[in-house]
């Protein structure tokens, strides 16, 4: 079997092993070891791509180009972080006797399964396989949302699954319509749904059917990405999912869904020109950024705050692509990379605070966490600073790139609105995080600390992630930069 297939098989094996019984150290080892190996294989695959070979399998149904390689590496990276943090997370909960053997099995099976589905998304060249893979991510994550089995987690899971399935039904219709638009040109059999085949025959596609298909597919995959106005499942699911799963959703799933959107966008661009789907992306992206703003200002829950931040960021990426300039595309992909590096820090610190206080609601956590849990609080502040795009960190550069591209291009008004929203978002985030971390406790009872902050595996992962996030602002490894450029070439050049 070739390298690409192994990259997908390893997390599956890990999931199977996790679903079986067995002593805890063994299961922890399979999870972390499996995902470590997966990350290694992702890097190897990307390296193979950079070396000039195009990794492919099953008659090009799976194929790695620049965009795939970038998303693959980021997913592998987040998968590994999530696994290590997840082991620490479960240990903490086990110390408080909150974990049943059933929950443990579920956790160890579903996390790698989720990672597998996301990796499959990122290397799918076949639009049918792509859809199946996205549906798999949804199904794998439902029971992660209900992990804590509270009333609210059932509600969140219900909304997540209904909205997700509806979105996917749209995406399926979009796929069918795309396929229909190329009737007679795409050929027969499995390969007829290949993205590469679509790109070859792009000028022949029937415009009306294609337009309709693109709209449905963008709305469908946009639901999975959490673009407004299809974002409503996101805050609920983020709040209920345990932090290791949350980070997979916020980074892996987001990147995967964006990958789907970009593939559809590219077909549309090749056939109908950049305005149609680009305009749609610009609109959805701007709307996402605008909708996130007020909800961040009135937020009452730490993880929902992160969800709205993630809606904002996916909006920024969509907007960057939609601007229709090479710099915008580059900025969007850079944004995706930096976002993937910083989001884990935010989730891990928020998750730690939530675990210490047994809740992620603001009134349960109470103000002034810095005095109670200094390390997690400091990390949260750091993550907030990076995520709001403050210099000198990475997201500042990517946002500046997008803004510059916007002001130089035809969409100046949209860019100006976007800039204003970014400033508001910065203020909102600073207000919320500042209040939680440094605000004066409201009454003495709040000063009581239910759990002391301890240095454990979870915290180690958090600090490691923070170091990576900070270092990446000043130094991106050469190969990663090469991947971003290759991805930009795919999205801009359509090659």
């Amino acid at each position, binding site marked *: 079997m070739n390298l690409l297939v192994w990259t997908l098989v390893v997390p599956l094996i890990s999931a199977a092993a996790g679903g079986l019984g067995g002593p805890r150290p063994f299961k922890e080892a399979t999870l972390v070891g499996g995902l470590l190996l997966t990350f290694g294989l992702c890097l190897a695959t990307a390296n193979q791509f950079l070396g000039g070979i195009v990794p492919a399998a099953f008659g090009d149904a799976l194929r790695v180009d620049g965009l795939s390689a970038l998303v693959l590496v980021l997913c592998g990276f987040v998968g590994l972080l999530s696994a290590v943090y997840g082991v620490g997370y479960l240990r903490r909960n086990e110390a408080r006797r909150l974990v049943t053997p059933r929950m443990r099995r579920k956790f160890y099976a579903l996390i790698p399964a989720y990672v597998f589905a996301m990796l499959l998304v990122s290397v799918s060249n076949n639009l049918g396989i792509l859809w199946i893979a996205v*549906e798999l991510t949804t199904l794998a994550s439902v029971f992660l949302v209900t992990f804590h089995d509270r009333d609210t987690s*059932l509600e969140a899971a219900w909304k997540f699954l209904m909205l997700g399935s*509806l979105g996917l039904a749209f995406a399926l219709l979009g796929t069918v319509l795309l396929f229909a638009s190329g009737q007679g040109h795409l050929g027969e059999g499995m390969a007829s749904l290949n993205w590469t085949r679509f790109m070859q025959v792009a000028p022949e596609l029937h415009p009306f059917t294609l337009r*309709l298909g693109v709209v449905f597919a963008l709305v469908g995959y946009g639901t999975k990405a959490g673009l407004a106005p299809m974002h409503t499942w996101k805050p609920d699911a983020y709040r209920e999912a345990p932090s290791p799963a949350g980070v997979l959703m916020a980074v892996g799933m987001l990147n995967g869904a964006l990958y789907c959107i970009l593939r559809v966008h590219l077909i549309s661009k090749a056939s109908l020109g950049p305005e149609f789907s680009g305009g749609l992306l610009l609109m959805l992206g701007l709307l996402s950024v605008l909708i996130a703003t007020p*909800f961040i200002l009135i937020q009452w829950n730490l993880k929902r705050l992160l969800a709205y931040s993630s809606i904002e960021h996916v909006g920024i990426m969509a907007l960057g692509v939609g601007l229709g300039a090479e710099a915008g595309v580059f900025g969007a992909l850079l944004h995706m990379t930096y976002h993937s590096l910083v989001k884990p820090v935010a989730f891990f610190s928020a998750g730690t605070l939530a675990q210490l206080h047994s809740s992620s609601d603001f009134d349960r956590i109470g103000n002034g966490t810095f005095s109670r849990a200094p390390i997690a609080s400091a990390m949260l502040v750091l993550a907030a600073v990076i995520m709001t795009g403050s210099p000198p960190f990475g997201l500042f550069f990517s946002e500046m790139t997008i803004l510059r591209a916007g002001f130089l291009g035809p969409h100046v008004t949209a860019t100006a609105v976007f800039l204003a929203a970014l400033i508001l978002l910065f203020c909102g985030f600073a207000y919320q995080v500042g209040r939680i971390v440094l605000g004066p406790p409201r009454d003495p009872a709040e000063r009581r600390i239910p759990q002391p902050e301890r240095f454990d595996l979870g915290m180690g992962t958090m600090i490691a992630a923070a170091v990576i996030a900070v270092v990446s602002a000043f130094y991106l490894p050469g190969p990663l930069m090469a991947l971003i450029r290759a991805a930009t070439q795919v999205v801009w050049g359509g090659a």
Partner: protein
Amino acid sequence: MTGNVLILCAAGMLVSAYLMVAQKALFTAIRLYSAQSLLLGIVAATIAFSEARHDLFVTAALTVALKGILIPWFLMRVIDRIGIHREIEPFLNVPASLMVCVGLTVVGYRVSTGFPEGARGVSHHLIGIALSMLLIGLFLMVTRKKAITQILALLTVENAVFLVAVGVTSGMPFVVELGISFDVILAVLILGVLVGRIVDRFESMDVSRLSKLKG
């Protein structure tokens, strides 16, 4: 002849969607869904027969077995277990809902005229009906409160998508079709499990009670 069978079945699917809108007894709604899926199976089989596409027979068989029999049986079992048989008053009353659905069908039909195959003939009706069913399914989803009805609405949307798939493209590649069927059945199973848990927890299947999470 083939065209007549196709149109008859597709129109039957549309009628079943309408009756579902007017229906409050959950059992009947499930039976309507089952009938709808059987009709879809017949559509697929007819196309397979007339165009000699043998992989479509498998699709037809899968549709009948999974959506016509297995999923309805599973949903009936869920209802039996939780013992709730009727939909409560929807957000919009039945006559108004029907009028909205008529409007939606007109929209669906209008859109279908843009397709190259859709200008006239059998495909025009298949696409028009499929798009109408899609819109009706969406409408059901937002106006109904019971979890099971929402699942049925989702499945109606799914059927509509399949009708487009067989009507416009005469079927997706086989492997993809297989994967999609597998995913759909898995999704329904998970939804069923969730419904069971929601009922256990809230002693009701009314999803409008699931409204703690806001903002």
